[in-house]
């Protein structure tokens, strides 16, 4: 009976032991299941198509090209590799400029008549491009339907426009978001690193135990403050400050986000780096001191090189944390989804995009799937960060054994 109970307990323990593994696998499954829904689909609204004159040599367009056409950034077919005809945009509402209301009389009840009229417009105008619903095309039509490139990994990572609610075709290019995320995080670590390292060295090597006893809980507290409070502080204090300091139209910039993130990344950098420094063997340190080196010389010639793998791990972990941070960044970086040119412009990061847009994306829509795909990207980045750190710290211990 007792044996059985012990076996049972062990079974329960084993089940709990695998909970993190199971969770990670579940996250992968659900994230990628939803995220994969984005790819291979046409980015147009359901039931809508793009049609052109049958003499037009173009029969395939990318989502970005279509957006540029309808935004009138591209006004001639020549720019798309077609004939030298200027582009005429046509949407349903434009029908009234081709036909009088009388000619269109009664079409509300007669769909096929409407479809024929539209077909005629396309037939009569060489340069027309029409964005119409699929049931506005008659069975025997003269127009040519343009094939719209479906969303692939290339246009997902390389596309420079993120505009999921744009019509006629939604734009799912994450390049600006990726750049925003990397820049904001990178600059944050650049700001945090000198301070974090200094504090780590100070705590591990210089400060006496009393000062350390005060600093440790303070760092812990810094790590414990909720990110939304950092965001609030940034919004009220740093945003106006940055705006005044650099004389900008808005204070919500990439730099503001980086500063807030730098403060938030400090505890991670300090704890991991301090750990690495303290773990340097005492014998090495004493050997250096015995040779007549000063304490400072020992620190920067012996201790820091010996702890370098741990310090690298601290930096990478800090970047990982910064990349995934959501709320504070969402509140202070301004959230403009454009490819950033300077740190003093509003930027938008991947986590902030998910947080800001998931609420308004209908479940199962392309937008919804795209946000999950963003989540996948974020997940993969943090996975890579963790594996790198793991590898670095393993290499570090091997070196120390030698």
């Amino acid at each position, binding site marked *: 009976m007792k044996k059985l109970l012990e076996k049972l307990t062990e079974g329960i323990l084993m089940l709990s032991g695998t909970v993190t593994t199971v969770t990670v696998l579940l996250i992968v499954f659900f994230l990628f299941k939803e995220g994969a829904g984005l790819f291979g689909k046409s980015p147009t609204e359901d039931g809508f198509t793009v049609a052109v004159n049958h003499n037009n040599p173009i029969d395939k367009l990318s989502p970005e090209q279509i957006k540029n056409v309808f935004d009138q950034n591209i006004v001639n077919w020549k720019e798309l590799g077609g004939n030298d005809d200027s582009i005429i945009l046509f949407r349903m509402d434009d029908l009234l400029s081709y036909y009088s209301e009388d000619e269109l009389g009664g079409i509300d009840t007669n769909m096929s008549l409407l479809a024929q009229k539209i077909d005629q417009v396309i037939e009569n105008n060489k340069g027309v491009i029409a964005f119409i619903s699929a049931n506005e095309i008659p069975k025997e039509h003269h127009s040519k339907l343009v094939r719209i490139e479906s969303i692939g990994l290339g246009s997902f990572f390389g596309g420079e426009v993120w505009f999921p609610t744009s019509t006629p075709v939604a734009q799912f290019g994450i390049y600006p978001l990726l750049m925003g995320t990397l820049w904001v995080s990178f600059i944050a670590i650049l700001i945090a690193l000198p301070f974090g390292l200094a504090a780590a060295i100070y705590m591990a090597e210089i400060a006496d135990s009393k000062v350390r006893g005060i600093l440790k809980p303070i760092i812990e507290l810094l790590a414990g403050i909720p990110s939304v*409070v950092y965001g609030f502080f940034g919004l009220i204090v740093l945003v106006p400050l940055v705006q005044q300091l650099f004389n900008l139209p808005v204070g919500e910039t990439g730099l503001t986000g980086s500063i807030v993130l730098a403060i938030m990344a400090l505890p991670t950098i300090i704890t991991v780096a301090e750990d690495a420094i303290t773990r340097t063997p005492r014998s090495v340190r004493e050997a250096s001191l015995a040779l007549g080196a000063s304490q400072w010389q020992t620190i920067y010639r012996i201790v820091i090189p010996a702890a370098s793998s741990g310090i690298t791990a601290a930096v990478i972990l800090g970047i990982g944390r910064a990349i995934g941070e959501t709320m504070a960044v969402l509140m202070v970086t301004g959230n403009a989804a454009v490819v950033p040119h300077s740190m003093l412009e509003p930027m938008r990061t991947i986590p902030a995009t998910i947080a800001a847009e998931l609420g308004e994306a209908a479940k199962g829509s392309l937008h919804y799937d795209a946000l999950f795909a963003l989540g996948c990207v974020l997940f993969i980045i943090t996975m890579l960060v963790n594996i790198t750190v793991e590898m670095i710290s393993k290499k570090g211990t091997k070196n120390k054994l030698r």
Partner: protein
Amino acid sequence: MKGRTKKRVAELIAFNLFRIMSASIVLVLFSILAFIVVRGIGVISWDFISKMPEEGMTKGGIWPAIVGTMCLVAGSMLFAFPVGVLSGIYINEFVKDNWFKRFVKLMTNNLAGVPSIVFGLFGMSLFVNTLGFGDSIIAGSLTLGLLALPVIIRTTEESLKSIDKYHREGSYALGATKIQTIRRVVLPLAMPNIITGFILSIGRVSGETAPILFTVAAYFLPKLPSSMFDQVMALPYHLYVLSTSGTDMEASRNMAYGTALVLILIVLILNLLANFTRRFLNKKIKQ
């Protein structure tokens, strides 16, 4: 002699630089705290704590958000604490040092590194949609619980590892089984540190916003939940709403300061409590 003074000067400069940089970190923390305390202290009153929000969240209190956060903390810990502690015990006591242990540890580290917004996405996909809980306390609690798991597992592991092996060996020598040894000898000794980790993860859970955005948090809901399938307001999300999308931002600013102060106070108290348990209980065990 000259080289020696040069060495001294270099050391003096370096050490003081580090001292100043460390002090500036402390200064940043205190200026954040001071700013929120000074602006928020006037807002806090019994009414602020105990009343419903009124007039487009520009007046009244934050009671439903406090209750919501308490529900989420309780729910997530009810799930994460036992599972996390059991998991930590299993990893440290039962798994041999092989690839499996390394794999499980890697997975725990990975889970700890997953951004909170990804937990939000996952929670929404699994608990809200697939399992059909809808936006509810249970969906939010489970999401937050998963987020807190790695912290609890790691502190459990660490505190078990730090127990002297003599305690274990003594227990085995008296004829106790492995499970008995863990339950009667090892766990009580490790408890102070486990509880410290537990308290700190409460702090973490009560301040998280991103995981609850799409699993439970309500923009404005001036009533208390009646079951675990209800939506609730929560303090961190309330602060986010007040400071970015309130109906009248200027008028709700005071409410935001007050909410931020409440959040800070929660974290502050929990941190003090954690430090206190660590010291007090450890001392008690040593006696």
